[in-house]
């Protein structure tokens, strides 16, 4: 099977969370998943554009989806919010032909190829855990995680609303758990694995955002987690980079190393140069070394 995708990393992975992008490309390459850049693709508008300009946000999504479709490839991303935004639009286009016609009528006038609603929107995590034979992944694992206790933090926008996604979502989603097991680690069950990282209220309700980060990280840590992984560059920013401010807000040290799922795969595949661990705010090196992974 040829795994060939239009790659949409999202704004965060192009800038502040670029370690996730570097690791994702390296891991995909090692697994023979080809990721093609999308030179015309813009920001998806996230949850905000849907609120301020609902029709424009659908047109922006149609333009992005159309670029992937024109190349004959499904779209793959590493950001939950991009995943949800594009999937939400795609789901509507597939189920509301009149809406698709209306949006196409607009984008065609601007010189954009009309979207035919034929492609799927995937997360790279899903491609790795749903579309590859587990043996193929395991064959590339040169440094099994050796029982490392990993807290899977799914985030919200790859889970809900359940009915729109092109893979198992809601309470049925278990991609991260399967991935951790596949890499030789032990998934940790804890209250918070499917809760919110607070990213989207980071600036507007900062006290609440920090409380969310602290609660999720503490619950994972108290359940025995040695590191946490997320499939989302925005969750990474919250749970990793904002863990320090969250600790300050609650007056308690947490120090749970957090990284993107692709970074942990890179570690297990021995792709250390692409793992980007030095860009993480809560360093995972000691926890990894304790399991013989360095």
């Amino acid at each position, binding site marked *: 099977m040829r795994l060939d995708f239009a790659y949409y990393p999202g704004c965060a992975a192009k800038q502040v969370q670029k370690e996730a992008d570097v690791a994702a490309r390296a891991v995909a390459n090692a697994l023979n998943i080809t990721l093609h850049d999308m030179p015309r693709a813009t920001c998806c508008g996230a949850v905000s554009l849907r609120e301020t300009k609902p029709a424009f946000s659908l047109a922006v999504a149609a333009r992005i989806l159309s670029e992937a479709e024109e190349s004959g490839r499904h779209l793959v991303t590493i950001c939950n919010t991009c995943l949800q935004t594009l999937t939400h639009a795609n789901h509507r286009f597939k189920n509301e032909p009149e809406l698709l016609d209306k949006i196409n009528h607009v984008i065609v006038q601007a010189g954009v190829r009309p979207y035919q609603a034929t492609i799927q929107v995937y997360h790279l995590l899903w491609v790795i855990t749903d579309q590859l034979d587990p043996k193929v992944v395991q064959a590339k694992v040169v440094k099994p995680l050796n029982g490392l206790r990993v807290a899977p933090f799914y985030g919200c926008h790859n889970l809900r609303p359940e009915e729109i996604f092109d893979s198992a979502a809601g309470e049925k989603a278990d991609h991260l758990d399967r991935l951790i097991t596949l890499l030789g680690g032990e998934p940790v069950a804890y209250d918070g694995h499917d809760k919110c990282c607070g990213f989207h209220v980071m600036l*507007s309700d900062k006290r609440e955002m920090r409380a969310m980060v602290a609660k999720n990280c503490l619950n994972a840590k108290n359940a025995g987690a040695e590191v946490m992984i997320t499939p989302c560059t925005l969750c990474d920013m919250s749970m990793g980079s904002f863990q320090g401010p969250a600790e300050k807000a609650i007056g308690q040290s947490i120090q749970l190393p957090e990284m993107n799922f692709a970074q942990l795969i890179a570690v297990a595949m021995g792709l250390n140069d692409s793992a980007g661990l030095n860009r993480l705010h809560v360093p995972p090196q000691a926890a990894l070394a304790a399991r013989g992974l360095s």
Partner: protein
Amino acid sequence: MSENHYTFRIQRNRKAADGRIDSRWVEYPVSATPTTTVLTLLEEIKGEQDGSLTFRQSCRSAICGSCAMKIGGRTRLACKTHVESVAHNGVVEIAPQANQPVLKDLAIDIGPFFTRIHAIRPYLEDGPDTDLVLEQSAYDQVNHVTQCILCGSCYSDCVMAEVSQEFIGPAALAKAFRFVSDPREGQKERRLEQLSHPHMMWTCARCAMCVESCPKDVKPMEAIVKLRTRGIAKGLKDGPGPKHALAFHHDIQKAGSLNEFTLMMRTVGILGTLEELGTAFHLMKKGKVPSPLPHKSKGLEELAKIYEILEEHPLDVETKAKEVVPE
């Protein structure tokens, strides 16, 4: 259908003399067919194993909303939930709703939830915004949210309510949308203005947990999104919530990608940014500072054109409720 063995692991709560809640988990074995409801089995436990087990229930038909409780980690109506669908290795974990005070066992004080419902004035008000002519499409939006049975499931699972005593919560906001979108309502604009205050519609973190928890498919978060759109359309753009949202549409239209460098300044202003300087330094330590000149995508003129067309000829893309035909 043959019967399976299940273990009901129930959180038993009791108020101690000092007012604090004593919590312990107690296990009860039951046998049932997979489609037996959790409520039936709770009643069986109360009737045959422990008469002191306390929980609320009434209609058994998913319409009164009394039996909402945490079942298998999520808030659900016990009368609507099949035991097999929530059993993990044969164990069904049951606890009271979260985010409100526990009274005894699975019964909670529903006061805080209803205080919030009352706070949005859940009734039509006279005023200048009343539409005098009702179109066929008048209830396209209202009908989304009138199915709410006030069970509190969304509030119990709300991640924002978990960390904020002040947040108005998903059910109250969905109810507010029901009035803002009702053609007969006379105070639509005043309501939107009040809903723009702190801890109201802009405080939702958009996690969609309420969409999943709601047993009646009200989709509170979708109502919150529509409230925000209406608020901005009415020019209610003060505060970090709307400013942040507006920054996105400016950036995408102009540059195709988000200018994260100036996003904070535009959302919380200069004073807010100064207050966050410590955080900024913390982020800088690991090179997590966005470039002031983000990457530009190809074909941006297309985007500008799309924007222009839509400003000149606005498109209504809102989801509409299915038409309700009286039986």
